[in-house]
């Protein structure tokens, strides 16, 4: 549905997207994950035809974005990070405005608005001014607005940032409904628990993809065994564990330590190392890896410069990449 081929976007002083290749298939919920400045927003803008590539190309439903942006806009719904709703218009007035903007047919419009308001559970607020809606409701209205022309591809740029947990659940409920109707969804998020909800995720870093697969495969491919342990003296325990052989990273969560090691056999040594320092640790056990473990490990490795970039299929390019 979306084909990104050797895409590069340069701005005056930065390379936001660097030789990115990626295929997003019809019906996927594709998650773009990565730290601030990784290139997620720029990639979405390039797909949305809001920007033109410096090099490479993007095809949406077989159409190149620079060749016929108007045709692409008809099949794409785009919800940018700061969606410009009109604060002084009511909920229904906002939707009517966006319907005009996207050229949604008038005949079916009333019915469509009624359906979207019901779907976003905004029915009872139809005459409320947008500026009097809560943050979560504004996001749902923005989503409804992006759906006014029933797009086949929906691009969502960090739609849940700053949204409370209840609204976040409701928002994902809506995203799931849209997914079940067959819409292709590309969503960027800084929240790794949301990445677990995507059918496939790409981890972006410095304009490139470090990894790309379904969340479960990424967790399973983690080149580490994850342990958890509790200690009343978590700080000292962490220091001892961090300096033990085979320990890749340690993170603290209250009195709980999450430890990534290279092999399962390290457990006994960790226990012994803490005992030698008279630090009590309990409940040391192997646990299921999370997406966050995989991402922190991968991002940590790039910071050390040990990990060369990968292409869209997750293959590492050769370190001494030869020029064409």
């Amino acid at each position, binding site marked *: 549905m979306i084909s990104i081929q050797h895409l590069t976007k340069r701005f005056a002083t930065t390379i936001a997207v660097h030789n990115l290749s990626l295929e997003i298939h019809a019906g996927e919920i594709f998650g773009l994950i990565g730290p*601030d400045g990784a290139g997620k927003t720029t990639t979405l803008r390039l797909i949305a035809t809001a920007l033109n590539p410096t090099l490479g190309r993007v095809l949406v439903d077989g159409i190149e974005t620079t060749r016929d942006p108007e045709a692409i806009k008809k099949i794409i719904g785009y919800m940018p990070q700061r969606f410009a709703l009109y604060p002084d218009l009511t909920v229904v007035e906002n939707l009517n405005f966006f319907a005009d903007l996207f050229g949604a047919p008038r005949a079916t419009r009333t019915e469509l608005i009624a359906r979207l308001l019901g779907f976003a559970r905004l029915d009872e607020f139809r005459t409320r001014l947008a500026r009097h809606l809560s943050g979560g409701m504004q996001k749902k209205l923005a989503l409804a607005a992006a759906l006014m022309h029933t797009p086949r591809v929906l691009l969502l740029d960090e739609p849940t940032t700053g949204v409370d947990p209840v609204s976040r659940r409701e928002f994902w409920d809506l995203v799931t409904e849209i997914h079940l109707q067959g819409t292709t969804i590309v969503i960027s998020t800084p929240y790794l628990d949301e990445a677990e909800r995507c059918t496939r995720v790409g981890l972006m870093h410095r304009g490139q993809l470090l990894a790309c697969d379904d969340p479960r495969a990424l967790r399973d491919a983690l080149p580490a065994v994850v342990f958890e342990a509790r200690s009343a003296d978590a700080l000292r325990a962490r220091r001892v564990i961090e300096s033990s052989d085979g320990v890749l990273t340690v993170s603290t*969560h209250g009195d709980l330590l999450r430890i990534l090691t290279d092999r399962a056999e390290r457990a006994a040594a960790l226990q012994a190392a803490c005992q030698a320092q008279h630090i009590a640790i309990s409940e040391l056990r192997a646990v299921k890896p999370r997406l966050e473990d995989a991402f922190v490990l991968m991002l940590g490795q790039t910071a050390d410069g040990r990990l060369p970039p990968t292409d869209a299929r997750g293959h590492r390019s050769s370190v001494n990449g030869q020029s064409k």
Partner: protein
Amino acid sequence: MNALALATHHLSKHFDHFVAVDDVSFSIQRGEIYGLLGPNGAGKTTTIRMLLGLLAPTAGTGTVLGYDIVTQAEAIRARVGYVSQKFSLYPDLTVAENFDFYAGVYGVARAQISARRAMILPSVGLSGQEPVRVASLAGGARQRLALACALAHEPEFLFLDEPTAGVDPISRRMLWDLMYARAARGTTILVTTHYMDEAENCHRVAFIARGKIIAEGSPSELKTRQMPAQVLEIDSTPSEVALTALRAARLFDEVALYGTLIHAIGADAREKILSARDILHAHNVIVKSIQVIVPSLEDVFIARLRSINQDR
């Protein structure tokens, strides 16, 4: 010395007819990281403003570091650091200039400021960044600078209101590690967030909704003893068909897609495993496994809210 760093008794705040904080009682030990979690508008910020003596309670009492929040607010403000949701750093000033400005505001003696700066900026990972203008700092670095500014007068108690909103996972970890280092040296920290997986990082957590505390405990207590529902993880194919069928059957309070897996949440989910299997088989779904998994804190929070709403 009193081991309690903070205590409130039946604290309430009404604005006209709106009850922002409703009979809230909780206490925090010295050196503890205590999380106040809840949706926007739940009363988190109003609670903090009362604890800092910026807002008078309608009813109830409270102490911070042993000082009364109504009559001894100035003594409290001299001893606490506060990073608000919209902590204003000056974008046109450098890192060092921002720090010096806040140190001055907090009453650090002029002669001591540069020594404090030399000690605190490296501890938040900003050494060498002194001459950088704040406008060109990334979001995570800005939050760490805001924290450094709040630490300028070596407070015994830190109030952090949504310190990690919009900060990426790596920077977020750095901020938490900084908080642990402070807590280990005896600083007490009250942190608010609506980002539920961060709640896991606190020593103790209170869930707040519509001004009331609806659950309190350590993250592991909340997930085991205080969870009114169970979470099933269903591995099946095709998962979209399974999702639609389970939602239509209305067997669970919530059915959500997690990649190719499905999470089904309900008060008696465990007893419904067999019924769920029957429904899925009737729709020709291949069920690979159904297991009860440990809920996330967000699952717990939403299940608590749901059970409270049902009791009404």
